[in-house]
């Protein structure tokens, strides 16, 4: 079976439209980030979260009124699992107290429907700021490492365009998290540690597709005149289109399975990686390679690539 066999798309011809599209979604995301901000999860916000699961169905407003009556302040919402609710409140190291107040309240006011506390997370403010910094450090260290590695393996223009594409992918996902955050009960899309893991996964993977395209360009560009670059870029992208899409496809397949089966704790992560890989596939064709092309065109000098060993 073959898809995208012997295609002949003029990808570079679409690049102005693609640039426009990318700038538009990035701007939309940025505006939402400024206006609406992000929905921070407990890792970065600090606080306590208690996950309660009931034996029988119960209404969210009933549970809320019981908790209000117990004098606990915080927010309660339906959690992705059956008959489960997540109660979030300010951080306290005294989870014993919190736990017993919740249990007592349910035992007294919701008789015959046992509410079990199945998970407690409490993150103090110093830990939260610590986690935030580690996340930022990890992300930038990864981008720097990729920049250096690709620069070393190809050439600085290729590396820079590749890292720009990664930024593009991560910022798009970040923007989406801001726009869609809190809209869905089954996936709250909160920024937490797992989303940072998603970003790093996207960063590592986004460059994969880009490298596949770069590799082909490197193989074919050697000794060619700059005037032929447009044809070579287009042909290279068409030739690698099948593998670009299939490699992403298999990963999308696994991530989709995660999204469906792995439960609410992983859902935000799966969503981020899914969207990130879709965008990453798009960006390797419509952002990374065209940027390199435009850069080469403007600099008007033939490119010298390392390691093009194809004969």
């Amino acid at each position, binding site marked *: 079976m073959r898809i995208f066999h012997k295609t002949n798309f003029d990808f570079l011809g679409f690049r102005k439209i693609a640039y426009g599209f990318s700038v538009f979604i990035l701007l939309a995301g940025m505006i939402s980030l400024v206006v609406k901000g992000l929905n921070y999860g407990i890792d970065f916000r600090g606080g306590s979260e208690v996950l309660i699961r009931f034996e029988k169905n119960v209404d969210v407003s009933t549970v809320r009124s019981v908790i209000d009556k117990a004098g606990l302040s915080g927010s309660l919402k339906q959690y992705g699992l059956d008959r489960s609710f997540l109660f979030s409140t300010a951080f306290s190291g005294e989870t014993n107290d919190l736990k017993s107040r919740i249990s007592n309240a349910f035992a007294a006011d919701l008789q015959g429907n046992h509410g079990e506390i199945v998970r407690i997370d409490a993150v103090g403010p*110093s830990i939260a700021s610590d986690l935030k910094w580690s996340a930022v450090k*990890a992300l930038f260290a990864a981008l720097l490492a*990729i920049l250096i590695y690709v620069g070393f393996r190809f050439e600085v223009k290729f590396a820079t365009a590749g890292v720009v594409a990664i930024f593009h992918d991560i910022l798009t996902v970040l923007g989406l998290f801001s726009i869609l955050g809190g809209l869905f009960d089954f996936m709250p899309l909160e920024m937490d540690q*797992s989303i940072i893991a998603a970003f*790093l996964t996207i960063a590592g993977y986004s460059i994969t597709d880009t490298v596949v395209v770069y590799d082909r360009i490197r193989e074919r560009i050697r000794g060619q005149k700059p005037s032929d670059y447009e044809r070579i870029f287009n042909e290279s992208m068409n030739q690698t289109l099948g593998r670009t899409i299939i490699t992403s496809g298999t990963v999308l*397949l*696994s991530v989709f399975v995660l999204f469906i089966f792995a439960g609410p704790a992983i859902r935000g992560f799966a969503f981020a990686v899914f969207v990130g890989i879709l965008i990453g596939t798009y960006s390797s064709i419509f952002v990374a390679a065209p940027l390199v092309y435009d850069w080469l065109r403007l600099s008007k000098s033939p490119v010298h690539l390392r390691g093009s060993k194809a004969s």
Partner: protein
Amino acid sequence: MKNKRFNLFLIAVVAIVALWSLWPTWHDYTLTKQIESYRSSQDSLRYALSHREEIENARKKSLKLGLDLKGGMHLVMEVDQVDLFEQKAWNKDAKFFSIMTAVREKAAKSDARVIDLLVSEFGNENVRLSRYFYDIRNTDREIIVKLEKESDDALNRAKEIVRNRIDQYGVAEPVITTQGTRKIIIELPGVSDEGRVRNLLKGTAKLEFKLLRDPEALVRTLDRINTYLVKSGTALNDTASVAKATPAAAGASTSGKPLYDLIGVTENGSAYTSERTRDFVSALLRRSDIQAQLPQDTELVLSAKSDHGKAGEKLYSVYLVRKTPELTGGVITEAKATFGSQGVQPEVMMTMNSEGTSKWARITGANIGKRIAIVLDGAVYSAPVVQSKIPGGNSVINGIESLEEAKDLEIVLKAGALPAPVRIIEERTVGPSLGADYIRAGMLSLSWSFIAVSVFMLVYYRKAGIAADIALVLNILIVLSVLAGFSASLSLPGIAGIVLTIGMAVDANVLIYERIREELDAGKGLVSAIELGYDRAFSSILDSHVTTLFAAFLLYTYGIGPIQGFALTLMIGTSASLFTSIVVTKEIFSFLLSRNVMSEKSFG
């Protein structure tokens, strides 16, 4: 030819090592199934006992499940270094306390070293460290070095004490480590009574024997504080919060006796406060202006446990004790929870070392007829009257509600006092039922992702897909066996990492197969097309794997806990796929080629 033999040998070794390392996991699983299969619990127990060694061996070497899958607690505790440094200081005055308050505020918000915050705050205020720490002749540099050592020692001692407490309590396979200069990380799998563990861990276990002042002194002191409160007028303004909750205190400002609305005094001169006002009273007693009203070297402390008043109300006693303890818990060598003489009241018997014994004999001998309070972490457990000189170095803590609590006291007394108070600053507890859900979800994702990807490879690449699928199975086995072999645990994010690896591991094969198809289209023969395919796809494969490894490695370095599990499986899976998708599939092809079962059509 020689090279090829080596590859075959390598594949065989890897496969065997992977299976061998996973064997105990399988064995453990079958044994557990076997135990569960018996109908009566006696039979199960009998089987478990007769195969005890086998079961223990298998369990020890089997793949560990993370806290989230098995259920358990992950705690991060912070050693209060500000308190530690305060203990080390002398000449403490208002200036010192204001600096320390600033340090405490900063320390709560950042992860910086407390010593650095301390030094910078002293620098801001232009105060030399030697004014409060160690010798006046020391330079700041020397003091910093000494304090650094103190703080390191305190952290390590705290870790050991926490470990002792947990070992005494009995948790299987606890992991206790330190992080940075003030954090202790505690992982407790399968804890059933988390509430008790929290209580056990949070106390400083600072035991002190303090001489009680006579009742007249107590009454006089309370009068003085009351007069002071009346005089200062505004003093109890911040009772507003209590006033709302307690109608009695609401009349405070009008009754003219603000303190006696909170603290009652009986005819025989003992004082008490009710449960409602307890927290407020203890906060009031900590105020420095109130403490200034007390006689020299005394303090007011509350009892740990309540008595029942006439109206059935819970009442806590208020004691006036000498601030300097007669004896501290450092002399305790042995503690034992028992039932008291009447056989109903739980208590803890303590034995002292020789130094403590002689001191204790002297103290009790000199204070016959007086009361000595046994104070643990700032609360009075009991204040017995000394009947006679105690020569044997024994003491008893009573006034304990349950045997369980007595046992916990025994544990913390035996483990010794922490050098400084500790606080829980992060906690993640997963109950066993949720863990079971996570396992189910993880297994479902693993199997569906494997089915989806492997079927896709078969449909899209036909025969060549089989090779990729075999490589995929081997890849998953390698990831699991490396985890088992290095005693790393598998968590839900770890499973997510494996699922993601399934999707990524076949990428190398996709790149190779696409290249082979291209070479075939270009008219190359099957053998040379395969050769060229592997050769030319290699550079893209290497680049993409290396970048993914970078990202995973940085995630592992900077991430914590569950995220590290994800990064770890992703790293192992990505590295393994370099081997499985390139070396293994190539060997499969050369085997198939030698059997003449491959054709140009085999790549779909």
